[in-house]
């Protein structure tokens, strides 16, 4: 049994090796590429799962990188190993799904290489305990996300969506880099555990700057308010990519960042309130936007944004365990929903739900698994989404302001509403798809079934999950066993209130013909929602500004030796001047 250091390196290195090999095999042998991708993804997952019993709370693996970058260290504690397992396992299932979904597509080498590269980097992100290394992996995941969103690079919509995602997440990443540099300036190294243990040593305004910088970075990465417009547009990516990156892993990086650094920042005044506000506003806003959208993947994207808002809200109220538990449930059922949506889209060749309908008879397996996922999303009892969402609401009720809790409650009702809406639009009603609608292929089924089973069962791990997270949870959190936890959730009064709201949401869709008057009155809100409440225009402006400034700076890259040397010389003069003035 290899030790934890080897496993940590393997879980990052095996997907990366797979990426290199798939790229080297070249596109003349697609079956080999499919096979290699699946093998290396599963190998990475095996390495990550093997780390579970070996988790430790001390830094492992010390590579010195010189005095400027400090030590490269990894910290495979409960939180990190949990997210590594999620990333690699759901990654493997998405890769297996891609075998059917991407059959016959060109440039598979590029696709699989980026997907595997991404999986390895995500594992690296969560395992690192050197803040600069976290930033490096953060950037690598952003690069892979951009490359995969724009995978169909002859489609201008996909390309512009990719650039938009890149610019918005990178602008947020500046917050992370600034925080890392502040840490180095005041602590002398980039070590995260040292920082978490002694955050009070930093001057309060620097700590506040770091806290809000990290919040901006996390909000941009997880598509929270006010950065939420890139995720729905990123649905131009192939669906397995949407399932992996934009539902189960990369967008969780922001939540991970907040959860990891919560012990350091919880004392910063107004930080927790800001986190709660971001989460609550996002959750409600995205739920409203999901109700009015007609594109199946966009509904799921808004739903992801909304559920991430729940997780962020939970962190803001101090319920780290609740947020991570909801992360686990959400990763499973959202990946399930996206992959089954992929099966549907692959069958009917359209993403518009108004052209679907009555597909339940022709796609029985997909219908069943998607209904399971949908019920989990809506928070129907017994499924994992119910337990985790109720835990989030309970944590919010205890630790957060009342207005935010009411937002989340309404959001839960709206979630049930839009879930039932998209399920009925796709699978019930008049069949509008063509006659050649086939059920999911074999590889797709292999990917979907474990996720459905997971949705039905991951809530049973609640107690052991709490023990596993262990030291990553803030002090004062009592870790309960599964039965005790479930009983507490089931008997809390907040749960019944939430269930009532969910039932209200379901009833609203069911009786929608009778509520047509209400729907008509709220039409204005609906129109605003489809424009993303004005943020779309804002973000488009930002993107246009960035691209314009890049074009205007192109003249500095003229490739002439003399000007390049001039630039070097100017840089040298600046450095010498700074040194001369600084020393004097």
């Amino acid at each position: 049994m290899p030790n934890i250091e080897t496993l940590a390196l393997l879980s990052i290195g095996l997907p990366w090796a797979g990426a290199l090999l798939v790229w080297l095999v070249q596109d003349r042998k697609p079956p080999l590429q499919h096979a290699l991708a699946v093998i290396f993804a599963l190998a990475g997952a095996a390495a990550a799962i093997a780390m579970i019993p070996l988790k430790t709370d001390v830094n492992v693996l010390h590579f010195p990188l010189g005095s400027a970058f400090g030590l490269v260290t990894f910290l495979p504690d409960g939180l990190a190993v949990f997210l590594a397992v999620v990333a690699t396992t759901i990654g493997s299932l998405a890769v297996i799904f891609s075998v059917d979904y991407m059959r016959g597509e060109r440039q598979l080498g590029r696709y699989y290489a980026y997907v595997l590269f991404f999986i390895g980097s995500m594992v690296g992100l969560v395992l690192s305990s050197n803040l600069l290394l976290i930033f490096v992996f953060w950037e690598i995941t952003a690069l892979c996300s951009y490359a995969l969103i724009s995978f169909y690079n002859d489609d201008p919509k996909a390309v512009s969506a990719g650039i938009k995602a890149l610019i918005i997440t990178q602008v947020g990443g500046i917050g992370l880099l600034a925080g890392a540099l502040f840490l180095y300036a005041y602590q002398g190294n980039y070590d995260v555990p040292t920082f978490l243990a002694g955050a009070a040593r930093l001057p309060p305004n620097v700590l506040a700057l770091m806290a809000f910088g990290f919040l901006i970075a996390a909000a941009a990465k997880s598509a929270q308010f006010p950065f939420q417009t890139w995720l729905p547009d990123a649905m131009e990516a192939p669906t397995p990519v949407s399932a992996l990156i934009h539902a189960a892993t990369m967008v969780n990086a922001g939540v991970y960042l907040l959860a990891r650094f919560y012990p350091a920042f919880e004392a910063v005044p107004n930080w927790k309130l800001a986190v709660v506000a971001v989460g609550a506003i996002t959750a409600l806003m995205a739920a409203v936007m999901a109700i009015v959208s007609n594109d199946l993947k966009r509904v799921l994207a808004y739903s992801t944004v909304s559920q991430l808002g729940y997780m962020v809200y939970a962190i803001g109220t101090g319920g780290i365990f609740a947020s991570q538990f909801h992360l686990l449930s959400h990763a499973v059922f959202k990946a399930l929903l996206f992959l089954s949506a992929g099966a549907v889209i692959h069958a009917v060749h359209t993403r518009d739900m108004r052209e679907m309908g009555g597909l339940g008879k022709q796609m029985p397996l997909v219908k069943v698994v998607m209904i399971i996922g949908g019920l989990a999303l809506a928070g129907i009892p017994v499924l994992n989404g119910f337990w985790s969402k109720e835990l989030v609401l309970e944590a919010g009720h205890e630790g957060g302001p009342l207005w935010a809790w009411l937002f989340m409650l309404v959001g839960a009702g709206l979630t049930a509403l839009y879930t039932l809406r998209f399920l009925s639009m796709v699978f019930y009603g008049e069949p509008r798809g063509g006659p050649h609608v086939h059920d999911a292929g074999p590889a797709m089924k292999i990917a979907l079934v474990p996720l459905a089973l997971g949705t039905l069962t991951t809530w049973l791990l609640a107690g052991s999950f709490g023990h596993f997270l262990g030291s990553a949870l803030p002090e004062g959190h009592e870790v309960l066993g599964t039965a005790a936890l479930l009983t507490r959730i089931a008997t809390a009064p907040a749960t019944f209130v939430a269930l009532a709201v969910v039932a209200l949401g379901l009833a609203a869709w069911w009786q929608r013909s009778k509520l047509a008057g209400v729907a008509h009155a709220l039409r204005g809100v609906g129109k605003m929602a489809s424009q993303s409440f004005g943020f779309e225009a804002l973000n488009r402006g930002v993107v246009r500004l960035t691209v314009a400034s890049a074009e205007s700076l192109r003249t500095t890259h003229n490739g002439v030796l003399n000007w390049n040397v001039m630039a070097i010389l100017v840089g040298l003069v600046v450095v010498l001047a700074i040194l001369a003035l600084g020393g004097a």
Partner: protein
Amino acid sequence: MSLPLPLVAAVAVLGLLGVGLLGLLVTRNLIKAVVAMQVLVKGALLALVLAGRLSGQVQTGQTMALTVIVADTIVSVVALALAVQVRRQFGTLDLQALSTLRR
């Protein structure tokens, strides 16, 4: 008047560096650029030897200078071979004509 040797040598180093940089900035011919780079490296060599002498580690300074001589010679060899090939392929050694980046 007799100036101390380190001062004279430092003047030499800085002068060579300046001339070399000026050459790289002003020339339009690929081979002249290699000549200017050679001048630059001579300045660096003198700087290494001077630093060795000033810090008392004369032999280490010399060894590093030797490595730099070898490296710089290889660089000029490869650069000249490149220049010859460029001349054969494109017919010109003018830096502006050779730059194909979109403006």
